């Protein structure tokens, strides 16, 4: 398992929807190595979102094990999960999900606040990250004063603020036009070259081809690797 950052081992997720049991994941197994750029593709209903939630430690499996950095996280409490998420995983969402009342700088600094980083370090790091995504000029703007592409770049900067091992991007270009989407994907590629592990969920084959490896999901398990 040397070099493995995330491993899903026969993971099942079963939701009880009233009378019906929905099996969102049916024995999903997946291994992602440090420094990889992996895309997870699949049609809607394939269990993509549930898989992202598992990888991102947002949810725990009904059955099976998830190892993050060789630690089994399937049995952790919610608060411990939150701590691990904050430290080891950076999230990028389809809808950017910035906090509207905070400026770009404050948004980027927020994950560090939850890790009790001191204020000075927070502001310095957030500053540097916004420069990195070429938004140094707009750091005191609120999300609604930024374009979609700019908001997603703020989100990228935010995902990096605790220097996580993994960046998890859930349809990062889903709400962007193709040109802006391209810029965002290029940023992810650049991060990968600098050594970050990137996991990206998408239904867009054009976006997925930027990854080194594509895992195709259907009916809650991997059906093809390419």
């Amino acid at each position, binding site marked *: 398992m040397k070099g493995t950052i995330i491993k899903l081992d026969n993971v099942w997720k079963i939701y009880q929807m009233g009378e019906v049991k929905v099996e969102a994941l049916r024995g999903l197994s997946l291994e992602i190595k440090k420094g990889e750029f992996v895309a997870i593709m699949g049609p809607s209903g394939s269990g993509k979102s549930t898989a992202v*939630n598992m990888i*991102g430690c*947002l*949810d725990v499996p009904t059955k099976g094990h998830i190892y993050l950095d060789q630690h089994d996280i399937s049995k952790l409490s*919610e*608060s411990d999960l*939150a*701590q691990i*998420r*904050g*430290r080891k995983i950076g*999230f990028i*969402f389809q809808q950017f*999900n*910035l*906090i*509207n*009342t*905070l400026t770009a700088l404050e948004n980027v600094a*927020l*994950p560090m*606040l*939850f*890790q*009790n980083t001191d*204020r000075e370090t927070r502001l310095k790091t957030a500053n540097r990250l916004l420069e990195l995504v070429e938004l140094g000029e707009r750091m005191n703007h609120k999300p609604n004063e930024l374009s979609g592409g700019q908001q997603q770049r703020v989100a990228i900067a*935010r995902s990096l603020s*605790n220097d996580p091992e993994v960046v998890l991007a859930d349809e990062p270009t889903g709400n962007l036009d193709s040109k802006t989407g391209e810029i965002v994907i290029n940023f992810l590629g650049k991060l990968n070259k600098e050594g970050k592990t990137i996991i990206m969920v998408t239904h867009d084959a054009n976006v997925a081809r930027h990854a080194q490896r594509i895992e195709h999901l259907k009916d809650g398990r991997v059906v093809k690797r390419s």
Partner: protein
Amino acid sequence: MLRDIASYVLKNMKVRLTRSILTIISILIGIMAIFALVSFGQGLSSYVNQVGQEAGADKLIAQPRGFGPPGTSSTPLTKDDLDFIKKTNDISEATGLVVQQAEVSLDEDKPGKWVFVMGMSTIPSEQRLIDESFGGIGILTGRNLKSGDKNKAVIGYNYQFPDKIFPKELNLGDKVFINDVEFRIIGFYEEIGNSGDDSNVYLTIDDAEELFDVKDEYGFVYIRAEKGANPSEVAARLEEKLRKEKGQNEGEETFFIQTFEQLLETFGTILLVLNAVLVIIAGISVLVAAVNIMNTMYTAVLERTKEIGVMKSIGARNSTILFMFFMESGIIGLIGGSIGILLGYGLAKLGGFFAASAGFALLKPAFPWWLIAGSLLFSFFVGAASGYFPARAASKLKPVDALRYE
């Protein structure tokens, strides 16, 4: 961390400005009312204590038992009773006061005002006993009644001012008619602090007895205990002796004897109970405000469900989310409380001013430091407590569900 969370909370409050202001107003009203009322209660207790000290611990008061205004009982204390009291052990002196209600007017034909008219002793030491019993007042201008005075009156503080009792103010040497008999004003009393006592008229006991056609009947007997005697023991002993002297059974006395401390306590207790009732009513408005804060906070949690999901996904612990919402409702309480205290202070000052100009100088608000600190703490606590359940609901949201919430 605290500073950043506080800043986040304030930003959220600013975004929902109208709602924040309305919620703050709801708590402000209750805190304002409680603060003002308690400040009056405080002022009152310290007044009672102060008067209690000034009146001294050596005085007792005997009154007829019965219904109706003080001093108007059908079985008044008599000259025999007074003489008996004077002769009793441990009593250094005693004086009787004739108390009647009478119409006082400025013109013989015009209708006047109904006030209490007191017939008092002309012996200076007995007059001092009466003065001390009224809270340590004395003659403000002019002179007190003396032996040989005929148709002379000393009158209360309030007569000096226009529109308090009569449209025009009265001066030394002016004439007044009491039950159509002419009297001349020879002195004014100092302020006692309530409009009833400050409207009293004092005559010599002989004039009063002639005017009201009574003889040797007293509404009050003021008594001074010997130095060193315990007043409440003296009161109990005196009551027993006087009862036997009058041949009455225990529990069927036509009179009662209290120490001044007991009298003031009774008086103070009644007012403080009244004050407490008002505070409880104001407390209900705080309760309503608490429900309102809770409602506001539940709405905030609902509106920010997705935001909560985002924060959790980027590493916020349940306790952090709990703390954030807890702080928000606490800050609402604290702001409401601070403004409430300021307005309550203004209200109490204004109320005190009007009470004083209406002749109730004893209704003077007091603002001890603990009242201010306690009100602030209380308002923060009410806010935080009302925010507890919404905050807990927010902290318990599952990140996956919260993120999906639109």
